[in-house]
């Protein structure tokens, strides 16, 4: 993976995409290791922002949008959870970027799926991480939220951040990603979209002859 790229991890259900990223961050027992700048990823937890699948979020938890975004700041906080920085400003900016300022005081259970995902992206933003790992951010969300999130992610890429994303929708792979990792239990291919996202690799990953046109039907 290169710095400042948006990288997609694609593969069929059960291919081990989520498992791969969890292992990379040392959240589950695994063999092998993942490194960034020559250091193991698990040792640089502060530089990584991770958003798990939003279906794993407890929507009934008494927490507002603003407080949820504030959790991102905890990455750089002391043991009591305080950063000593201007937290309000960072949160307000992040909410502004994902266009959720109006919802700041709402409990997170009373948001649409797309709004919730934007909140989780805002939480990532305040973490100021170098590597952002997202697990299926676009699953079950509206088009408006999806494009709003892509705009933010491209902005982050322009700032030199690296984004790694588990992704399901093959139609958008060419327009979203710079590089792609294709897997189905085993690694099938990894590299720039143009040379990796090929019909041959797709057939290997999904077991069916496939052809994906940008913007067309798969």
């Amino acid at each position, binding site marked *: 993976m290169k710095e400042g790229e948006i990288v997609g991890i694609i593969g069929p259900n059960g291919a081990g995409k989520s498992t791969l990223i969890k292992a990379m*961050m040392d*959240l589950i027992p695994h063999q092998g290791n993942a490194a960034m700048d020559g250091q193991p990823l*698990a040792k640089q*937890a*502060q530089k*990584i922002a*991770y*958003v*798990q699948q939003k279906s*794993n*979020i*407890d929507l*009934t*938890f*008494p*927490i*507002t949008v603003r*407080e*949820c975004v504030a*959790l991102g700041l*905890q*990455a750089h*906080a002391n*043991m*009591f*959870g*305080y950063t000593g920085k201007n937290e309000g400003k960072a949160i307000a900016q992040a909410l502004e970027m994902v266009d959720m300022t109006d919802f700041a005081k*709402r*409990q997170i*259970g009373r948001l649409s799926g797309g709004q919730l995902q934007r909140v989780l992206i805002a939480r990532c933003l305040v*973490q100021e991480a170098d590597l952002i790992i997202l697990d299926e951010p676009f699953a079950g969300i509206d088009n408006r939220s999806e494009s709003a999130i892509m705009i933010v992610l491209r902005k982050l890429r322009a700032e030199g951040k690296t984004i790694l994303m588990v992704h399901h929708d093959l139609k958008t792979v060419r327009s979203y990603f710079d590089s792609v990792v294709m897997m189905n239990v085993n690694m099938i291919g990894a590299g720039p979209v143009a040379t990796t996202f090929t019909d041959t690799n797709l057939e290997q990953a999904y077991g069916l002859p496939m052809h994906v046109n940008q913007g067309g039907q798969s």
Partner: protein
Amino acid sequence: MTLTFWHDLAEFHFLQNALLTSITVGIVAGVIGSFVILRGMSLMGDAISHAVLPGVAVSFMVGMPTVVGAATFGIAAAILITLIRQHSLIKSDTAIGIIFSSFLALGVILIALVHTTTNLFHILFGNVLAVQDKDMYLTIGIAAVVIALVVLFFRRLRLTSFDPVMAQAMGIHTNAYHYLLMVMLTLVAVVSMQSVGTILIVALLITPAATIYLFANRLRTMVIASGALGGLISFVGLVIGYSFNIAVGSCIVLLGTCVFIVCFPFSKKQNLIKLPIGGRS
């Protein structure tokens, strides 16, 4: 009837102790209970409150303060349950079932071996009217420490309760906060023993918190309101129990349940009944 209570309250020292102790216990149980239910650890709360029993017996045997023995056994139970859950294929509720019933059984045997004035019935069901000055100060002291810890670590507790995976990915030691909560839970169980007894502590922990959970939009609100509600039902429960000469602990628990039942249909989060006023979109 309740007039008698106020009259006696002015007159009898034991009733003043009972009042202060039960309110303190109600508050601190509500505060910790909020975290217990949000983390889905209600059963764990039950287990720990039962597991302190052998500790109480051992304390009597060797003549050390009850808190020390009880806390040791409570924390031992918490560690055992967590170890079984994390390192075997046994599920959490099964591990809890095995450990807490064993500890309770052990406690019953040990208490029987100790020849003291301690009555097993009082330990199991509480006897707040017999609280001594020493116990009351201890209760207040422990409650103050627990609440101070919650305030200090509030942000971390919120993060690890809401999204433990994210916390772990950030490199935060979520287990440390898990055990911090277990320690606080044990301390609360030890002091709650006096007012509602070992068997019923879990009700004092989770019923006020569960009632508030139906309405709260923020964790801070939930913690404060649960504490207030816990204190209030403990107070009213004591007044009713004393006035009608019925078991105070059971009175507190049933009162909590009544409040829960009354509030349940009005929960905005569940939308069982649409309120004509005050509904926020």
